[in-house]
């Protein structure tokens, strides 16, 4: 499958979305990400049982924080896919990219001129 999705997306792999902490998501915005999506297994299919359910709660808390601090909660989202849904993954990434294009750059990037730093740092 040779699926195309926008090149301005940085993928950070984690063993399970349950590993993604609220602080990781906030840090991505602090270093200038315009938007972040968390893509986990389908609900009920997490190899660690409830990792994606925890991630969903965390993403929803980050949405609330972004709304309250003036960035807008729509810059973060959670999706559930199986490993066989590559086509849908590419579609989600395109949709999110379009949404972010409409929203414009993150106010953080506008204020600091910071471009996204190394993915390793974001994931650390």
């Amino acid at each position, binding site marked *: 499958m040779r699926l195309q999705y926008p090149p301005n997306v940085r993928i950070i792999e984690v063993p399970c979305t349950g590993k993604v902490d609220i602080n990781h998501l*906030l840090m991505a915005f602090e270093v200038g990400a315009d938007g972040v999506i968390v893509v986990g297994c389908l609900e009920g299919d997490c190899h660690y049982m409830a990792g994606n359910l925890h991630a969903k709660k965390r993403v929803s808390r980050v949405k609330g924080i972004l709304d309250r601090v*003036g960035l807008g909660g729509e810059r973060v989202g959670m999706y559930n896919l199986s490993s066989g849904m590559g086509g849908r993954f590419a579609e989600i990434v395109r949709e999110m990219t379009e949404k972010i294009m409409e929203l414009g750059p993150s*106010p*953080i990037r506008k*204020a600091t001129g910071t471009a996204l730093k190394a993915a390793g740092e974001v994931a650390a």
Partner: protein
Amino acid sequence: MIKAIPKPIEEIIENVKDCDKLLIAGCDGCVTVCEAGGLKEAKILASALRLYFTQGGKQAQVDDTSLTRQCEKEYLAQLSDRIDQYDAVVSLACGCGVQYLAEMYDKKVIYPGVDTCFMGVNEERGLYSERCQACGRCILAETGGICPIARCSKRMLNGPCGGSDKGKCEVSKDVPCGWELIYERLKTVGQLDRFENPTVPKDWTTSRDGGPRKIVREDLRI
């Protein structure tokens, strides 16, 4: 343990919006267990406030730390060499910790970052409920190990009242009748004869007032 919930961030922002240098001080004690005030929460709040300041075009410094306990001077003293550089400190300890911090650093502006709720237990992650109201003279020995002050809505010492219905309190179907619990427990441990002698009037001079409370943290429950 003491149970607390994070304060709404807009309330914290309202307090600190004019600060240039802020310290978010977590507490590794009780409030860490109910995920309202430990190091992780301190980092989340610091990060959220940095985002708030930066998007508003302001360059503010927001640092985070966490102390073993904020209700002890020895741990509060760990801030002594750095606290002067901050305009204010947001404490994520319970009300006791916030006050002790303010007492120890009496010239520093200290804001609370959590709402302290009650003394209770962890039923499960994100679900905490009240068990004790610190009446200062524990009567659990007479009541089968179940506290009528914290768990009977009317704090009755000789219950149940007429509002007890199928094991539930008339205050809410979600509140078990404290005295039904006591009755069942005394029956289980073979001490039902305690009901033959009314509890003598309690000396309330060691206590305060209040009713049973509960935290339901939907953001943590699955």
